[in-house]
């Protein structure tokens, strides 16, 4: 029944259809704004138009199909979906349209400003008089919050910033939090400081990056924040301008952090839970509040926020594995309270070793606090049960035993001076054998390899073991042989499978 392509009637209909579609396109956005999103598939739109037409004049039902072959036909939209226009809406012609557009624009602007703009808080003259009890409390809060771990660069002035923080989104430099008026926080009032701690906004209104753990600090008590403020304000002012961050686009646009905050910034100051002891509550406060343990010990999602569903289930930081903190007493190499207490305070403990890598400065901080703080943390952490049942595997030798003689030779050459059973460090100082350390017991070889490559550097002024770095002394094959040999002694049932690729990756990272 369909007319031929060159038929005059068909041509007439085509022209009329095209005019119809042009009008439809013209009012597309106006209608979209006025009517809200009535979204139809393109094919259904064509049917709708054709039906409208056939019901009006409809001499040739079915002719709409011709449009698919007509090169001059104006496609309704480039996208697969379009808005269904209402052709004769009186709204289109009225002032209401433009008023609505204006209202929507204003609402959009208000929302954008509310999200992405924060006012500056007026500068003040640096306050100087705080009572000494408050300063003492503040010093402890600053220590528990590990402020100096990031806000002091190696060799730099205390709390004057400048430490590079390498993130997947670029490199950040920590800032100066000494009370210097120009480059530090000397002009910050307590409300400005509290806003920064709870919402991640600097005094002048700019958004701070979430590498600063305000997600956790917002859970602190107002008293602790005030004490920390007093302590920071009473310290020596150091003139140290912030270094320019090297963030990749679009993360170099700070207001975008507001969207991150919208998604991840929630949680109120922690209140004690009645069913638990005071020590447990104190531990929870230290872990979730100032200590921000989950910052490293929880995995991060694609945009650098902690996965709340995997709270303290283990993460990674600077190439090190930050192990899970739940189920510490349930695992194959379990922790008891005494071991955890010693470890948290930077001691060398039997069965696990001593904190290395990024945990070392954290444990040294904890060691400077009263012992009750580490006890509280240990009580809380040991109460956290692993969501996964422990699967104790029965040790079974691999079917084809590997030859570890080269690893054994390397051990006697490079490690035995300190780590052999008869070495003075172990005989006199009572250090544990390597096979009992967490690094060799862990499922991942990362922390063992990182320790061998980088050693345990001396921290000026801090006590503790020192181990030389072996990055330049051992090549990849030697490192692999050594790791396989020692793992065989620690966990003969579970050799590390991924050694050479992990070593390769770590070498790339530390270049």
């Amino acid at each position, binding site marked *: 029944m369909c007319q031929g392509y060159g038929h005059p009637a068909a041509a007439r209909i085509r022209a009329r259809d095209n005019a119809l579609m042009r009008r439809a396109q013209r009012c597309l956005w106006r209608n979209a704004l006025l009517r809200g999103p009535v979204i139809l598939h393109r094919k259904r739109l064509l049917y709708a138009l054709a039906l409208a037409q056939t019901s009006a004049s409809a001499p040739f039902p079915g002719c709409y199909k011709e449009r698919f072959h007509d090169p001059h036909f104006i496609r309704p939209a480039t996208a697969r979906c379009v808005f269904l226009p209402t052709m004769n809406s009186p709204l289109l012609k009225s002032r209401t349209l433009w008023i609505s557009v204006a209202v929507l624009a204003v609402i959009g602007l208000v929302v954008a400003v509310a999200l992405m703009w924060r006012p500056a808080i007026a500068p003040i003259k640096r306050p100087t008089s705080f009572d000494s009890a408050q300063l003492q409390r503040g010093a402890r809060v600053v220590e528990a919050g590990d402020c100096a771990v990031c806000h002091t660069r*190696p*060799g730099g002035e205390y709390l004057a910033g400048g430490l590079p923080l390498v993130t997947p989104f670029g490199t950040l430099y920590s800032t100066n939090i000494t009370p210097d008026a120009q480059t530090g926080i000397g002009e910050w009032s307590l409300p400005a400081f509290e806003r920064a701690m709870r919402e991640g906004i600097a005094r002048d209104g700019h958004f701070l990056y979430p590498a600063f753990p305000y997600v956790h600090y917002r859970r602190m008590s107002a008293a602790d924040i005030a004490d920390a403020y007093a302590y920071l304000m009473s310290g020596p002012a150091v003139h140290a301008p912030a270094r320019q961050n090297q963030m990749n686009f679009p993360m170099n646009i700070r207001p975008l952090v507001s969207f991150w905050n919208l998604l991840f910034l929630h949680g109120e100051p922690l209140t004690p839970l009645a069913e638990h002891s005071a020590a447990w509550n104190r531990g929870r406060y230290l872990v979730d509040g100032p200590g921000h343990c989950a910052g490293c010990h929880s995995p991060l999602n694609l945009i650098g926020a902690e996965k709340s569903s995997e709270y303290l289930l283990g993460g990674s930081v600077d190439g090190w594995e930050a192990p899970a903190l739940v189920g510490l007493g349930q695992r194959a190499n379990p922790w008891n309270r005494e071991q955890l207490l010693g470890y948290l305070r930077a001691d060398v403990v039997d069965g696990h070793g001593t904190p290395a890598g990024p945990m070392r400065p954290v444990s040294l901080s904890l060691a400077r606090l009263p012992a009750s703080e580490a006890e509280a943390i240990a009580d809380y952490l040991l109460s956290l049960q692993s969501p996964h049942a422990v699967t104790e595997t029965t040790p079974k030798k691999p079917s084809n035993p590997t030859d570890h003689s*080269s690893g054994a*030779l*390397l051990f*006697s*050459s*490079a490690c035995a*001076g*300190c780590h052999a059973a008869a070495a003075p*460090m172990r005989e006199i100082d009572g250090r544990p054998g390597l096979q009992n350390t967490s690094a060799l017991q862990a499922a991942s070889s990362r922390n063992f390899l990182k320790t061998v490559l980088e050693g345990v550097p*001396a921290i*000026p002024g801090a006590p503790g073991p*020192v*181990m*030389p770095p*072996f*990055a*330049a*002394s*051992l*090549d990849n*094959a*030697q490192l692999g042989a050594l790791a396989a040999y020692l793992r065989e002694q620690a966990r003969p049932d579970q050799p590390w499978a991924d050694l050479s690729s992990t070593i390769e990756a770590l070498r790339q990272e530390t270049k």
Partner: protein
Amino acid sequence: MSQITLTVNGAAQALELEPDMPLLYALRNHLNLNGAKYGCGLGQCGACTVIVDDKPVFACLTPCAGLEGKKIRTVESLGSAEKPGPLQAAFIDKQAAQCGYCIAGMLMRAQSLLERDPHPDEQTICEHMAGNLCRCGTHLRIIEAIKQVAGHSGSLT
């Protein structure tokens, strides 16, 4: 015993060594390069420091196996008593040695820094030299000597 070829101060030396022998023993006992000293044997003092491929290492903890093809340099490569190198001359100039036992290691660690960064500031020098100890306590003179070379525009070799 196995045959290991070490490239020391530019010359390839084929040696019959136990593969677990640390480099320090090969240098002192097989090659008569007695500059590097045995101090603690634990990588804690730095008296044995030599340069392997531009990086300072503790020769007492570095196995010979695995060093084939790498460029090993000892204090003997810096100059001689008659013709000391610039860093050695600066150590003499500043009278940086007392008993002298640590000095070969100090020189090699400082040398590796100055090759990487010819004009380090004092902070960098102190951080870099932290791995080497001087029992006589001449650290301040040692740092002065390194600073003297770091201030010079002349080359180190």
